[in-house]
């Protein structure tokens, strides 16, 4: 449609005609008008409404008559035959809303191209005159059909032959003579020019400046500051890329020993690049142990492959195995019959039934450690106890959401075999009660070496006395952090009376009530053997109590005293170098790691020692 302002390629002549405002339709109409007049004059008797379709041809004929006979003669017949099809032309022309027809009309009109062009050329000259005669009133009526936008040539006059400024011209509308000025406009329909009043009357402002050619918006002139972080590729990442490239050609990579394989797997995990392609590097039918510290990128299918390609595994340790789903876990169940140690971090997707099936097929399971499972429930624990209880020595159910007293009662049945050495039930969703925990200790406490019951925040001093104190006697490592009910006195008396030999590791961090009584008692009990001590957040512990660490901590390797308010440079110095005021207070010669985050009395002058890493020194000093 022309309204779309989309045009195909046009000839120079068409351009020219358009520039001068001459359209085929105008010509036709003019011809028809002319013809109608003639017909009426001739008294043809034709109905006026039927006339136009023929009349164009007639008009053509009339004009062609001047040029020559042959084309008109042949065409007359043809057009006569088509005449019936032109009935709609008049409707179209007058109403101007039957667009498809209209286009058809136009196309038809342009069919006899040669003749019509001739006709147009002639008519152009004629039309000008005719228009000036003012016989185009009906054209005004049809304006709605016409393309309204002013063409450039209207203004510039470069396209049409605008007479020179200062010459006289007759207005195309009112026929008055006027002086051509810079502002004289071309008559919108048809040829000719308008005088100033007519130009104004037609609704266009002659003084309006031609719309400045729309400036192309400057395409993003402002400098876009892009921050491209230039990361220099590490040699490790390059090596990994190369390994990926040659992964199918294992010989090219050379021979890997078992130790190296472990180291390489660690290096890959550390770069978080352990993918299913790389993983095959570590698979072998003779493998008995496999540890991947980052299995984030191993899809369920890859984990199934792992199980199938390492059928003799006894130890399997997968961290971040969030993609381990039921299907993959079932392959573990079926393809790894010799598995005795299973350590998984994040097996969220494995369902209860699949856990149970695994236990039923692995009666010799010795070590079962999972962290983070919202699905592991009482039924799983029952299956675990029933099938694996006789062999189970290490059990970790850390961050298992459904852990509750009923689970503990079930676990207490493990007491039948007295095999459990390590138990980690830390960080449940909801704490278990004192009674259930005491009962559990009563059942299985005798052989326990490692115990972690952190974040069971309902446990109290009663648990210490009746649970640990009475039933547990061979413990080496104890973690009871985040248990706010414990009191200073309770812990003091517990350590004073406990029959257990000295512990190697004690973590009682984030128990804010503990302080100056608990610490000396703890040190007296375990100090001689203690290697790792964490009393983070014992905010009230006194300087004297802290100094006693220097008296006992001969074996101490790691110490965390974060947020203990009384720690200062002198206390640290006593730990490092011993305290000469007291005989035998030799300090902690083996200390390698000291954490003093949040100890506000520590200054930049905090003593240091070779071989000791001190974390958390804040060097800013407030000078009063």
């Amino acid at each position, binding site marked *: 449609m022309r309204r779309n302002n989309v045009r195909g390629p046009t000839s120079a002549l068409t351009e020219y005609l358009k520039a001068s405002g001459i359209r085929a339709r105008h010509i036709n109409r003019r011809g028809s008008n002319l013809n109608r007049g003639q017909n009426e004059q001739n008294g043809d008797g034709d109905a006026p409404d039927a006339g136009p379709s023929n009349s164009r041809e007639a008009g053509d004929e009339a004009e062609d008559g001047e040029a020559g006979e042959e084309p008109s003669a042949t065409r007359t017949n043809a057009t006569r035959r088509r005449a019936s099809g032109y009935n709609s032309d008049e409707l179209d022309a007058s109403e101007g809303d039957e667009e498809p027809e209209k286009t058809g009309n136009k196309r038809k009109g342009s069919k006899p191209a040669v003749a019509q062009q001739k006709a147009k050329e002639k008519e152009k000259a004629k039309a000008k005159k005719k228009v000036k005669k003012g016989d185009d009133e009906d054209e005004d009526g049809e304006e709605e059909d016409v393309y309204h936008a002013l063409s450039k040539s209207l203004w510039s006059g470069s396209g049409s032959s605008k007479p020179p400024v200062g010459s006289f011209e007759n207005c195309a509308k009112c026929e008055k003579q006027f002086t051509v000025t810079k502002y004289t406009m071309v008559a919108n329909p048809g040829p000719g020019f308008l005088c100033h009043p007519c130009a104004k009357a037609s609704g266009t402002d002659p003084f309006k400046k031609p719309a400045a050619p729309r400036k192309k918006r400057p395409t993003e002139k402002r400098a876009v500051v892009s921050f491209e972080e230039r990361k220099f590729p590490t*040699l490790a990442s*390059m*090596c990994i*890329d190369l390994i990926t490239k040659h992964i199918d050609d294992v010989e090219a*990579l*050379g021979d890997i020993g078992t130790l190296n394989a472990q180291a390489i797997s660690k290096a890959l995990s550390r*770069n978080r690049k352990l993918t299913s392609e790389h993983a095959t590097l570590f698979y072998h039918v003779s493998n008995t142990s496999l540890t991947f510290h980052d299995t984030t990128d191993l899809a369920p299918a890859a984990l199934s492959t792992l199980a199938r390609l390492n059928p003799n595994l006894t130890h399997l340790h997968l961290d971040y195995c969030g993609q381990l789903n039921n299907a993959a876990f079932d392959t573990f169940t079926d393809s790894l019959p010799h598995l005795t140690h299973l350590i998984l971090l994040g097996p969220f997707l494995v369902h209860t039934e699949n856990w149970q099936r695994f236990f039923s097929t692995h009666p010799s399971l010795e070590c079962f450690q999972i962290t983070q499972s919202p699905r592991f429930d009482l039924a799983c624990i029952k299956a675990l106890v029933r099938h694996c209880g006789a062999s189970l020595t290490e059990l970790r159910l850390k961050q298992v959401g459904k852990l509750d007293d009923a689970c503990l009662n079930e676990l207490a049945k493990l007491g039948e075999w007295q095999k459990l050495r390590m138990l980690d039930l830390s960080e449940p969703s909801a704490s278990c009660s004192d009674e259930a925990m005491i009962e559990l200790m009563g059942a299985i406490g005798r052989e326990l070496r490692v115990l972690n019951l952190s974040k069971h925040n309902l446990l109290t001093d009663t648990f210490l006395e009746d649970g640990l104190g009475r039933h547990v006697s061979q413990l080496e490592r104890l973690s009871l952090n985040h248990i706010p009910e414990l009191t200073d006195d309770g812990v003091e008396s517990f350590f004073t009376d406990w029959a257990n030999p000295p512990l190697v590791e004690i973590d009682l961090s984030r128990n804010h009530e503990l302080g100056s009584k608990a610490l000396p008692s703890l040190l007296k009990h375990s100090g001689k053997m203690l290697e790792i001590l964490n009393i983070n957040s014992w905010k009230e512990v006194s300087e004297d109590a802290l100094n006693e660490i220097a008296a006992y901590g001969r074996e101490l390797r790691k110490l965390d005293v974060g947020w203990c308010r009384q720690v200062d440079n002198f206390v640290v110095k006593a730990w490092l170098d011993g305290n000469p005021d007291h005989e035998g207070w030799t300090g902690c010669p083996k200390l390698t790691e000291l954490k003093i985050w949040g100890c506000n009395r520590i200054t930049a002058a905090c003593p240091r020692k070779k071989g000791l890493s001190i974390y958390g020194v804040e060097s800013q000093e407030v000078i009063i």
Partner: protein
Amino acid sequence: MTEDIDMQTEPKDTDWVCVNSTDGFSFLVRRKVAYASGTMRNMLDTESNYAEASTRTCTIYQRGIIVEKLLEYMAFRAHYESVGPKEEIPVHEFMERIPPEIVLELLLAADYQEM
């Protein structure tokens, strides 16, 4: 003696550092190059008072061929790390110079050297 040679001068980027391999190869590189490795930077940190820092000699417990490749990367890195953002880093060319036979060993060494 009029001129004492002070062994504990301020470390300069243009100092020479000796890097030894386990099988008897020694390499002399600029300190700036040696600093491309995090591990070696710590070793040579004069404040830590390690033997490596005072003697300016580091031993990488790898074969000569591995050490050579490590140092090649460190030199590559030291050179291209400071170039403008427009300049292309010929990483690909460097990768082509790593023989696949040593790539696993090199990975472990690179991992240890924090680079």
